């Protein structure tokens, strides 16, 4: 497995790191992708990696510079989730993916911004800083892995880890004109990833280089005893499945910007040269947003229980009774969107309302999974647009519902647990991106189209 040279053949790990650090120094004051730059540690590890390269003992990611979304634990470093609640929280352990990156000799350059607790589609819900799209500073970088997309697009790293609960890797990848992968649920350990919605969250990768993205994915994937949902990863068929038939769900084009839709259609037309392309229909795709919103909010409200002000956030007032102090700490430390989701999630999981909302969402999700499985018996991958619009400008007011609708093309992969990849259509980020969905644990197939 050992790769002897860093990705750019003539460049040492240290030199590669310096280039990235220079770019941060040059541009991050305006882009604001990074929450923390691990300058000293990165330089130290670059030197060590270069030594290992020289000795022929380097790992598969030797010399690659990687940024990590700040909802993934890096030992001793701040794990803020871009929230006031965790602004000064330091992780006491490394996420499994971080351990694996280090073991593969990647250089972790720093932590990058996100929407608070990964709740958002454009990055503007970060409670700590506003990340801008390096391709057009007036536009949003996409979210919630805003800093991951922006740091990659600005050349501040070779790849960035993000997390994708409803499209949070793929949206910033598409908006920042990069490649983005949301692996199969269970392909990558979530140990060390702060929860948004446990049954939907998955760590993914963004890079301008598809090969690098694959290498990073290969380094971080695999079963982990500390995340039981990765057990299935062991059952992955190692044989390289061939792509023969591409399915195009007609629902994927409903409500999509005309220019983007045309671009994606054109690309699919090109694919017809090598593949059989079929139009298919997955009717439940029309309900992805409500199913997702209910499932996500229910799980999120559970995940957020621990942030009660006793252990994190503004310290609870000892002179007050417990519940008052919990309420005050949460009120002061959490953003508006977070509170909205907690309240919705709490409401729909109450005994009284559960059957009207949450139980329905769970059932609908099962139906969607069945529909997907049935369609994907005959087609190897699905294709469609990644995001319905190009990145919007800051200040273009959106209601929460409009915001939620931006996820409509990406969230089906989370609800069904299938892998999905997005690829830029042209060198202009406003042209949009194409997205492919694959079958469970056939992530590798997505790299062969």
């Amino acid at each position: 497995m050992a790769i002897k040279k860093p990705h750019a053949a003539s460049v040492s790990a240290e030199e590669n790191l310096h280039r990235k650090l220079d770019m941060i120094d040059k541009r991050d004051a305006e882009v604001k992708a990074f929450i923390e730059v691990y300058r000293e540690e990165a330089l130290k590890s670059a030197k060590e990696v270069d030594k290992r390269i020289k000795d022929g003992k380097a790992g598969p990611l030797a010399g690659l510079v990687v940024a990590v979304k700040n909802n993934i634990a890096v030992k001793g470093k701040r794990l803020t989730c871009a929230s006031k609640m965790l602004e000064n929280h330091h992780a006491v352990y490394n996420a499994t993916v971080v351990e694996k990156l280090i073991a593969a000799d990647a250089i972790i350059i720093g932590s990058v911004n996100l929407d608070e607790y990964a709740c958002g589609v454009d990055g503007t819900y970060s409670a700590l800083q506003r990340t801008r799209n390096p391709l057009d500073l007036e536009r949003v970088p996409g979210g919630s892995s805003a800093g991951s997309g922006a740091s990659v697009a600005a050349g501040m790293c070779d790849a960035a880890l993000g997390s994708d609960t409803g499209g949070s890797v793929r949206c910033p990848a598409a908006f920042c004109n990069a490649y983005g992968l949301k692996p199969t649920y269970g392909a990558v350990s979530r140990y060390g990833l702060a929860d948004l919605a446990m049954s939907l969250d998955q760590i993914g990768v963004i890079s301008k280089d598809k090969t690098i993205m694959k290498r990073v994915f290969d380094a971080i994937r695999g079963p982990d005893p500390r995340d039981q949902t990765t057990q299935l990863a062991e059952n992955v068929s190692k044989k390289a499945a061939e792509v023969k038939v591409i399915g195009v769900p007609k629902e994927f084009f409903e409500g999509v910007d005309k220019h983007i839709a045309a671009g994606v259609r054109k690309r699919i037309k090109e694919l017809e040269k090598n593949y059989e392309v079929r139009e298919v229909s997955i009717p439940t795709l029309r309900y992805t947003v409500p199913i997702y919103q209910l499932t996500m909010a229910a799980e999120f409200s559970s995940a957020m229980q621990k942030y009660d002000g006793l252990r994190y956030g503004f310290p609870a007032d000892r002179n007050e009774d417990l519940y008052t102090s919990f309420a005050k700490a949460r009120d002061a430390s959490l953003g508006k969107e977070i509170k909205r989701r907690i309240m919705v999630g709490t409401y729909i999981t109450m005994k009284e309302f559960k059957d009207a909302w949450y139980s329905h969402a769970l059932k609908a999700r099962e139906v969607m999974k069945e529909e997907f499985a049935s369609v994907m018996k005959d087609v190897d991958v699905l294709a469609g647009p990644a995001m319905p619009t190009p990145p919007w400008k800051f200040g273009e007011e959106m209601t929460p519902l409009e915001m939620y609708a931006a996820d409509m093309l990406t969230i089906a992969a989370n609800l069904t647990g299938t892998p999905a990849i997005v690829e830029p259509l042209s060198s202009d980020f406003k042209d949009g991106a194409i997205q492919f969905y694959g079958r469970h644990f056939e992530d590798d197939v997505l790299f062969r189209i």
Partner: protein
Amino acid sequence: MVNVVIGLEVHVQLKTKSKIFCSCPTNYRDVEPNENLCPTCTAQPGSKPFGLNKTALDNLLKIALALNCKVKDSSVIQRKHYLYPDLPSGYQRTSKPIGIEGNLGKIRIREVHIEEDPGRYELREGTVDYNRAGIPLIEIVTEPDMRSPDDAREFLDELAAILGYLDVARGEPGSMRADANVSIDGGTRVEVKNINSFSGVVAALAYEIVRQQNVLRRGGKVIMETRHFEEATGSTTTLRKKETEEDYRYMPDPDVPPITIKQSHVTELGKTMPELPRAKSARLSKDFGIRSEDAWILVAEVEIADLFEKMAKKAAPQKVALWIRGPLKKQLNYRELTMRQSGLNEEWLSELFDMFETAELSDKAMEQTLIALFDMKRSPRKIATELDLLMTKDTKEIDRVIEAVVNENPKSIEDYKAGNEKALNFVIGNAIKLLKGKADSKLVRELILKRIKEKK
């Protein structure tokens, strides 16, 4: 007697090396506060539960089988949401029922499930120790089939015996806790929480029944509430009044895959089950011809039942039974030791019992030897010899002592002759004391009576 209805929810900490969802050790009593911790059992942001501890699940299954439960093919770990400082995640992981529809004698078991223990919150100091967070716990829920505190006592005694036989529970003080639901005369059900021992359950129930009776007697109404048992005073106080059931927003935990239980595995576990107290009691009573009430007492601790079986092969079983539940249990109870903890073995105890039966030791000397045995832990014959407790064979010495006590207590002798039996006991006691317990009290009595007659 009023019509009392009692149901119990019994929590038992299981014996495992590591916690239920992580690999931290479980010896929380032996270490400094907050030492056995990891990101998972403190619910650090990003942490996830490892798989459900397999030993914990097997321990639960054994208990479920012992309680004659049906074992379900699958279960789910749910999140039970509530906020309290001892709960680092803000929800407790608790399974849906795994064992259902069982019974222990006449008490039906509704269900048995597994859950995680929270940490320990010291309200007064405002501190929390998370060492206990993640200790595997089972909850056994009975149907409301008990009609008195004594019913509850019997049920809990048998349950404790079973847990001991299976060797699956931690067993130290505080490792078994209970909540009790009590209603009288078909009235409102009151839940009593925080009962930290099985003996506390009986005390709490006795108190609660009287309290409810008093409320009714004064023309009041028992209200639906949760009450807190105060161990120190043996009373219950209002914890919270509840108009409706609390809403814990139960939700399947997406981080823990569903639990699947193969019936073949349950069958295999069933084969490893020891003979349980009820069956053992019946067998001992039948095979050895001892009284069933004695057998029931012997089987409360498996080591005692085993001791009996070995001893009863060498001596008269009924006598052995009475000796064990009498002198031996008295000394164990006094020291608050189980047979296992005592470090005594069957060889010594058989030897001691034999010496007693063959009149080498008087009853008093036997007791003294037994007491010494707890500390000295060697052959009772050697102990008795060293301490000079063996029955004296020197009849001259006995005669001399008897002559002395009869002569020195003329008043008592007169009283005895006048019909006061107790007066004679005083004389016998003096003689035994002078003989340092080395003579049998029956023999001494006979000899004294003989001497009194002779003196006439």
